[in-house]
C-alpha cells in the first residue's frame, strides 16, 4: 500500500483512537497530578427538623475565587501516587523497619489497600488465565469430536456463561452459594458442617471468585480454539496416527503446537481482562475479602464525597500494571516477528 493511500485509510481510525483512547489517558494522568484546592472552612449555624446546631461548612465565596484562579486544582505532583491509598512507600518502609518476621511484614503490607488489592488481583489473574485456557481447550477438543448434528446445540450451551452479563452471572452464583442456597447447603452437607459459609471465609471467597472467573471466560478460549481446530491440517494428524501416536500424543505434539499462536492471543486478552477483575467482586459482595484496582476506583467514585484524583491515580496504575503484565508476551511476539523477517 502506498503511504498516501495508507494515510487516508488509517485517518478515521487514528482520529477515533486519539479521541477515545489517547485523550482520556492524557486527562486521567493530568487529573492524578492535581488535587482539589484546600477547603476554606467556616462554622455556621444549621437548622432543620431536629433543631439547630453549629456545623462546619465550606466558604463558597472564598473557594470560588480559588477555583477560578486555578481551575485544575492544586498541583501535587506524585503525592497522591505515594499516599496510603496507593503505593504508600512511607507505610511500607515503616512496616519493614518494625517487622518481627517476614510474614509479619506481609501481614502489615496486606493492611494497605493497594497491596491488598494486588495480592488478590495477581492471584486471580495467574490462576484464572491458565485454568481457563486449559478448560477452553478441553471443551474445544471435546466439541470437535461430536457428530455434526449435536455440535450447534452444544456450542450454544458452552457459550452461555459468556453471553450472560457478568453481574447477572455472578449474582445467580452468589445466591446459589448462600448458606441457605442450593450449592451452599450441598457444601455444608458434604463437609458435614452446618455453619460452613463460603461468603464468610476469605480463602473460600477467593476460590469462589476464581471458579466464577474460569466459568465466565472459558467460553471465549473455547470459541477461539474451536475456530483454530477447523484449520488443523488433517494430513499431519493422519501421519501422526500412522506413526502410532496415541490421542494424547496427537494433542500434545500436533494440535497444541498448531494452536500456540491462538494460546498467546487468548493469554494476552485474558491477562488484561483478569487484571481488571471487577464485576464478580461487586456481584458477590466480596469486598470484605477481596479487592482489585478496578474496585478501588469504583469505591473512590461512589462515596458521598467523590475522590477523583485518587481514582485517577489508581487508573494510571492499572494502565501501567497491564503494560507490565503484557510486556513478556509482547516482547516474545516482537522477537518472533523479527526472526521471521
Amino acid at each position, binding site marked *: 500500500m502506498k503511504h498516501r493511500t495508507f494515510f487516508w485509510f488509517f485517518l478515521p481510525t487514528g482520529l477515533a483512537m486519539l479521541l477515545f483512547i489517547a485523550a482520556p489517558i492524557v486527562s486521567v494522568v493530568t487529573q492524578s497530578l492535581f488535587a482539589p484546592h484546600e477547603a476554606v472552612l467556616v462554622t455556621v449555624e444549621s437548622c432543620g*427538623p431536629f433543631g439547630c446546631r453549629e456545623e462546619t461548612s465550606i466558604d463558597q465565596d472564598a473557594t470560588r475565587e480559588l477555583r477560578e484562579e486555578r481551575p485544575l486544582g492544586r498541583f501535587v505532583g506524585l503525592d497522591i501516587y505515594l499516599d496510603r491509598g496507593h503505593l504508600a512507600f512511607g507505610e511500607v518502609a515503616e512496616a519493614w523497619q518494625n517487622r518481627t518476621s517476614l510474614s509479619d511484614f506481609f501481614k502489615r503490607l496486606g493492611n494497605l489497600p493497594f497491596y491488598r488489592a494486588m495480592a488478590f488481583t495477581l492471584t486471580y489473574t495467574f490462576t484464572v488465565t491458565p485454568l481457563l485456557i486449559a478448560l477452553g481447550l478441553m471443551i474445544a477438543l471435546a466439541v470437535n469430536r461430536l457428530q455434526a448434528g449435536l455440535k450447534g446445540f452444544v456450542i450454544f450451551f458452552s457459550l452461555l456463561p459468556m453471553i450472560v452479563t457478568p453481574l447477572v452471572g455472578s449474582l445467580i452464583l452468589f445466591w446459589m452459594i448462600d448458606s441457605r442456597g442450593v450449592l451452599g447447603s450441598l457444601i455444608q452437607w458434604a463437609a458435614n458442617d452446618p455453619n460452613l459459609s463460603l461468603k464468610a471465609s476469605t480463602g473460600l471467597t477467593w476460590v469462589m471468585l476464581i471458579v466464577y472467573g474460569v466459568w465466565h471466560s472459558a467460553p471465549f478460549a473455547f470459541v477461539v480454539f474451536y475456530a483454530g481446530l477447523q484449520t488443523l491440517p488433517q494430513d499431519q494428524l493422519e501421519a501422526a496416527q500412522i506413526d502410532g501416536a496415541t490421542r494424547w500424543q496427537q494433542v500434545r505434539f500436533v494440535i497444541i503446537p498448531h494452536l500456540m499462536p491462538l494460546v498467546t492471543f487468548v493469554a494476552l486478552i485474558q491477562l488484561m481482562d483478569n487484571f481488571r477483575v471487577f464485576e464478580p467482586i461487586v456481584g458477590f459482595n466480596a469486598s470484605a475479602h477481596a479487592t482489585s484496582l478496578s474496585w478501588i476506583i469504583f469505591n473512590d467514585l461512589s462515596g*458521598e464525597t467523590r475522590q477523583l484524583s485518587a481514582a485517577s491515580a489508581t487508573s494510571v496504575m492499572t494502565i501501567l500494571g497491564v503494560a507490565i503484565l503484557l510486556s513478556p508476551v509482547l516482547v516474545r511476539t516482537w522477537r518472533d516477528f523479527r526472526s521471521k523477517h
Partner: protein
Amino acid sequence: MFLKKFTTASAFAVLAATGAQACEITARVSIVGNEFPAIQTVGAEAAKCTGAEVKTNLTADHQKINLPGMQGNPAEYTSAIIANSSIVALMNEDVIRPLDDLVAKHGQGLNKTQLITIDGKIMAVAFMANAQHLVYRADVLEQIGVEPPKTYEELLEAAKMIREKGIMENPVGGAYAAGWNLAQEFNNMFLGMGGEFFKAGTAEPNVNSEAGVNALNMMKALSEYMNPDFLTHDSNATNAEFRAGNVALMNMWGSRAATLVTADGVPQEVVDGFAIAGPMTVNGGTTPASTLWWDGWTVAKNISDEEAESTFIAMMNGIRPELMQDEEIRTQAVWLIPGYEPTPAAVGVFEAANAGTIPYPMLPYMGLLHTALGNELADFMQGKESAEQALADVEAAYTAAAKEAGFLQ
C-alpha cells in the same frame, strides 16, 4: 367497607384533581433522587403539574449522578432529592441555590422545621424523617419471657436465650455488609458510646478512642448471633432474613419498617409477631445508638430563575398537605408535612427523635470518614486484626483522603 373505600377513593380523586389544577408550571422540571416508596410518591405527585415537562429519574444510584448532573450549565437536573448526608456533597460543590425568595413566594404552609437553613439561608425543604430503630418478633420474646430490649446489652441476653432454647440459630439481624452499611452501624454504636467523630472544630479524625473500641467490641458481640454471611448482608438481605422468620431482633430503617411484612410469602407468624420499638442505648449511655435523618429536596443553581420557580412549584405539589389524607401514602414514611398523623409504623422514628438521637453530621468531610470506616472495619469483624489496629487504619485512610480533598494540610 365498600362504601368507605369508595368515599376515600373519590375524595382522593377530587383532591388529586384540584391539586393538578392548582399546579401550573411554565418551564422544564427534572428530578433526581432515591427510589424508596415515599420518594416515588413525591416524584409522581410533582409530575402531575401541567404546562411543561416534568422528568423524574429515581434510582438507588442517585448519588453517583446527581452531582455531575447539576454541575453543567444549564444543569440537567433542576432538583435533587437528598438526605442530610448527601446534601453536603452538593453544597461542597456549590450546585444548589438558596430558596429564601421562593419560600417567601410559594412556600406558604410549610412547617418552619421543614426548612433546612444553613448559615441563615434556606438550602433544602425536608419532607420526611428517618432513623434506625429496633424491629422485633413479639411472639418470640414472649416465648422466652423478656420485654423488648431497651439496650444492646439486653438484646444480647435475649439473643442468647433464643439460641439456647433452640428457637433460632442466629436471632440477630443487622445490615453489616462491608462498605456503607457497616460504617453506618459503627456510626450508630459510636454515637451511643458517646463518641465524637472529629477533634473539636477540626477535620482531624477522633474514632480511635475508647468509644470506638467499645463500639467495635459490641458490634463483634452482636455478630456472634448473626448469620455467618453478615458481611455481605445489606438492608435488603437483612429484611429478607427477618421475613423468612430467621431473625427476631434487628436494628432497621424506619423507612423500610412500615412495608417490612407486606411482601408476598411472609409466614403468618412473622406478620403477627412483627413489632417496632425505639432505638436502643448501649453501655449505660443515654444517647440512643442511632442517627436521625431527614430527606428533602433542593433546587439547582445553574438553571434559569423560571426553571427554578417551576421546580419549586412542582416539588411543593409533590409534598402538599392533602396527600396526608391518603392512607397508603401516610404509612410510607414519617412525614414532616403539616397534617400528617403518625401511623403505628412511625413509632420507632418518633421515639428516636424524642430520645435525643443525634442527627447524622452534615460536615463536608464526614463522607470521607464514612468511606474509610466502610473499607477498614471488615478486617476486625472477621477477627483478622484488633479493634485498635482497625481504627488506626480508618484514621490513616481518612487522613490520606482528607489531605487529597484539601480538608487537612
